[in-house]
């Protein structure tokens, strides 16, 4: 057993132990201790991941670690095996790094919840499954993590289980994910039948199948894509993610922004040696990516709930990653995944800090003028907003720029759409920024209380205060990462050496763009975005007391967007309602009306026949004689006439 084996076992063991300790000791632990245990259970794997990262030698890039057997029968041999290579190590760093920060933040955020133990146990369980997902060395191990994170997502969305709306959202997330999972599962069957293995090493080196059987590879990749679309909330399986905001905000930050939803992107990058051979799938990924990016960015423009805006923003950013994947720019996708993990986690945690200060208020209508009251939150949110808008030198600028360049390289018309997307991005994020931090505080104006269900104490602006250090320090750490994260892959024109691209060493599409064009493209985008930020500034700060537009003032198109293009309603009409209808009607019609009726009538038939026969046995001798005579005549007749 070499060192790496021990490290990987420990990396998986710590979150699992954290889960078990918090799950079983539960209320026997003080809340704070439980949070500390939970955080250590993620922090130690972070340190170990760093050690693995440092030890990762250039000449032995991939290392498969075999732990034990799992399923063996016939040709199927699927062991518990784990893969250490630059890609998985990068993911481990992102997951444990962002994970640790969010866990620490949660100690503060969840301190008053009396089920904090359960919260941390599930968070640790999530980290455990997420690590399995990214370190698994075959598709079935990946699938363990894949479904496991789905389970944790379900549990944590419905964390406040007394609210049935939250429970519904949790169920919706699980079931929509399962639709994707079925695609993944069928892809596994296809791979077993065709490759007779699920191990990455064996599949990606089976050149004779890969290069010759394009049809099979295309189907496999399409099915994997179904799985990725479900997990990464892309069109058409994205509607669960906005509802998933029902969970506590750290959950939204960790699971529904930084890590789990990026699993689909990771899976495609991991399978890039398959996807290369399926140009049809790649085109489809481009279409899904850019459509999702634009559609959800548009919806984000009109959302009132701060977390919903961020949720749609996540979907949109994931769309960008998919766009990059479709273009074959795998390492750009990973780069954006990494920076997005930083700045989107930060956006969520900063939003959480606002929500915390406002006693659970999430509606932008009730915010405003918070800049002075929540200074750390204000600054960190600004950094994240600049990062997501792609302003240099923030991290999002570099990663998004790479995607845009790749897009331009492929097809300039697509590039226009991609730029349009980043314009929308800066509009919706700065709309939130101005609505929350600028203008006047609207939380205590009486006409804004349309929400009767939840009675929240009116907060006086003077009573608001910044979150405690345990929450602000994580914000600052993430702000630093959002600021500087881009430098891990500094492009050559800015004097960098594309460290991340070289480190991952995934054969990606080359951009053959000369420096002048590149400068031109970059500066165009940045200038347009900056102008938009200023326009939004005037729009939202000109009338300081005013909140978001009220629905009654909206025109038709705005109403469509405000109502998310009625996609939820459409799905309910197309799937949920018919399913309910079928479920209600099958029993009385098919079951009772047909199948059971046939069985029962078979029973009744024998009873009827019996009672008929009983009538013959009536004890009347003359009747018997009559029957006898008739029978004798009949026999005679048959003998004479027929035979």
């Amino acid at each position: 057993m070499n060192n790496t084996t021990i490290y990987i076992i420990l990396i998986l063991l710590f979150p699992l132990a954290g889960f078990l300790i918090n799950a079983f000791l539960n209320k026997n632990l003080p809340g704070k201790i439980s949070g500390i245990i939970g955080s250590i259970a993620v922090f130690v794997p972070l340190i170990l991941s760093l050690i693995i990262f440092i030890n990762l030698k250039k000449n032995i890039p991939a290392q498969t670690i075999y732990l034990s057997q799992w399923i063996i029968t016939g040709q199927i041999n699927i062991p518990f095996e784990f893969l250490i290579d630059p890609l998985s190590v990068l993911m481990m760093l992102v997951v444990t790094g962002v994970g640790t920060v969010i866990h620490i933040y949660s100690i503060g955020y969840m301190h008053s919840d009396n089920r904090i133990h359960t919260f941390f146990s599930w968070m640790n369980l999530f980290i455990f499954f997420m690590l399995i997902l990214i370190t698994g060395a075959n598709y079935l191990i990946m699938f363990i993590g894949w479904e496991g994170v789905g389970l944790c997502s379900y549990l944590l969305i419905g964390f406040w289980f007394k609210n049935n709306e939250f429970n519904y959202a949790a169920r919706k997330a699980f079931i929509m994910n399962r639709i994707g999972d079925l695609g993944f599962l069928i892809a596994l069957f296809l791979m077993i039948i065709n490759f007779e293995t699920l191990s990455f090493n064996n599949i990606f080196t089976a050149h004779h199948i890969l290069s010759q059987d394009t049809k099979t590879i295309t189907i496999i990749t399409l099915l994997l894509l179904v799985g990725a679309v479900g997990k990464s909330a892309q069109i058409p399986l994205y509607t669960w993610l906005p509802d998933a905001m029902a969970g506590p905000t750290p959950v939204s930050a960790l699971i529904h922004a930084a890590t789990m939803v990026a699993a689909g992107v990771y899976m495609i990058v991991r399978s890039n040696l398959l996807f290369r051979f399926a140009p049809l799938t790649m085109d489809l990924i481009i279409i899904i990516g850019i459509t999702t990016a634009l559609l959800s960015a548009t919806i984000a423009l009109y959302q009132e709930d701060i977390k919903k805006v961020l949720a749609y923003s996540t979907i949109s950013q994931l769309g960008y990653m998919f766009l990059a994947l479709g273009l074959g720019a795998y390492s750009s996708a990973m780069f954006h995944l990494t920076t997005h993990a930083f700045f989107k986690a930060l956006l969520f945690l900063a939003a959480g800090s606002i929500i915390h200060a406002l006693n659970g208020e999430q509606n932008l209508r009730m915010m405003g003028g918070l800049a002075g009251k929540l200074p750390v939150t204000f600054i960190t949110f600004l950094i994240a907003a600049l990062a997501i808008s792609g302003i240099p030198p923030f991290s999002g600028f570099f990663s998004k720029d790479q995607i845009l360049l790749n897009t331009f390289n492929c097809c300039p018309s697509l590039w226009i759409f991609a730029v349009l997307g980043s314009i929308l991005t800066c509009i919706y994020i700065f709309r939130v920024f101005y609505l929350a931090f600028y203008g006047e505080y609207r939380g205590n104006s009486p006409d804004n209380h349309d929400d009767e269900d939840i009675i929240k104490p009116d907060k006086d602006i003077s009573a608001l205060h910044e979150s405690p250090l345990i929450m602000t320090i994580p914000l600052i750490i993430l702000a630093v990462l959002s600021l500087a994260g881009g430098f891990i892959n500094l492009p050559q024109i800015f004097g960098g050496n594309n460290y991340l691209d070289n480190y991952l060493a995934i054969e990606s599409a080359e951009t053959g763009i000369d420096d002048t064009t590149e400068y031109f493209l970059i500066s165009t985008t940045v200038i347009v975005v900056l102008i938009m930020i200023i326009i939004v500034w005037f729009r939202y700060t000109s009338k300081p007391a005013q909140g978001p537009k009220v629905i009654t003032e909206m025109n038709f198109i705005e109403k469509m967007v405000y109502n998310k293009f009625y996609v939820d309603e459409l799905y309910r009409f197309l799937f949920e309602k018919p399913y309910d209808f079928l479920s209600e009607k099958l029993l009385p019609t098919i079951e009772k009306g047909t199948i059971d009726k046939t069985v029962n009538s078979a029973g009744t038939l024998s009873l009827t026949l019996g009672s008929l026969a009983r009538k013959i046995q009536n004890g009347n001798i003359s009747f018997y004689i009559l029957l006898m005579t008739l029978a004798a005549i009949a026999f005679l007749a048959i003998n004479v006439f027929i035979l």
Partner: protein
Amino acid sequence: MNALFLIVIPFIASGLILLFRKSIIVKCISIAASLIQLLLTLYVLIQTNFSQGNILSFFIEWIPSLGINFSLNVDGISMFMLVLTNFLSLLILVSGINREPKRIGMFYSMIFFTQAAMNGVFLSSNAILFYIFWELSLIPVYFMVLFWGGERRQAITLKFFIYTLLGSLFMLFAFIFLYWQTSGIHSFEITDFYKIKISPAVQNRLFWCLFIAFAIKIPLFPFHSWQPDTYTTAPTQVTMILSGIMLKMGIYGIIRWLLPIVPQGVEHWSNTVIILSITGALYASVIALKQNNIKTLLAWSSMAHVGIIGAGIFARNLYSLQGVMLQMLFHGINIIGLFLVADTIENRTGTRKISELGGIRNISPFFSSTFLIIILGSIALPLTNGFIGEFLILTGLFKYYSWYSIFAGLIVITGAVYMLYIYQKVMLGQTNELSDSFIKVPWAENIVLIPVIILIFLFGIYPIPLLNLTEISVKGLLQMM
């Protein structure tokens, strides 16, 4: 000789228990007897080397002129079934540890009688012996449902009894037909049946005679209409026997008495049966969603699972059959756990109507977590037992014909739909008057739930011993076809 003991011990226990009336003594004796039975089963398991194929365990002539012998045989498949029966029987007995049915001695005696007969079914290698044990197992179940059952039990048991009996008559007819086809001195021995050459046309008809008997027992769509009512009205322990063990007699029957005897008939009808089974699985899981009675919902869910097993048998390859073998055990474990949860809830709150429940998680988080884990096993989350079984079955189905697997795979979604629905309705949300009365579940009740949970994970993570146990016999079976 050991094989004979496996049948005799439960019979003795069954008689012995009748002598006692005090509840505590009855329970002690039954658990002790059941434990001995399980240990003996495990002893036979360790003693036998299954790599050499079938091992004749016991043979005495009974009615030699008719070729009826008392012959018992153990191979990997029947060994697996014995472990399943005797292990799950123990679990079922323990699950009743703090229930007090009236005339408890009689009740437990009948459970042992059923267990003995079921062991006989899995051991018999003579058709008539098989048939006798098959019918013998039905009788105590009939009386248990009739005497200890719930609403409308007379009508429901009558239907159940006549329906299954009718199916068995077809089987008897097929056996007698086969008897006359055996060469030389006619015999009912399964080994002689295997040697018969039957024309394809006859096989096609003989197939249905045998299949209907097994399909009604399992039950496979559309021969299922006795099942939901019977499962609902039967006392919970009997429902556990029916769903956990007895339906596996039907599956075992197909594997042992149908596939190798009429292989061409099977070849001819397998598409029909697979389509029927998958239809049934989806049909049942859609209906399950709107059931308001927990036990009825679980009855439909059980039917959905066995539908997939049914389809897996007829895909007839190593993966699907290995999956079928494992899933038989796993389905048994999970369904017993689920029915126990349902029973506990009913016992506490006095209702099994889903609409009247809610919020139990507020009062007993541990109990609701165990329910959730069993649900996860049932909806086949990786690292739980259900995943191994369903994964292998679906892989096998895919190998047979990919579209079957895709449609069967839909239960991955539909299963989650109804299971998470029932979980939310019963466990989550606010408490109401009824669920408020739900007091903390005592440890005695968890004695069964905890092993169930352990087994769900154990077999989900480490299924290899089970796979090894059945692999050689399944391969042998495939060679015979």
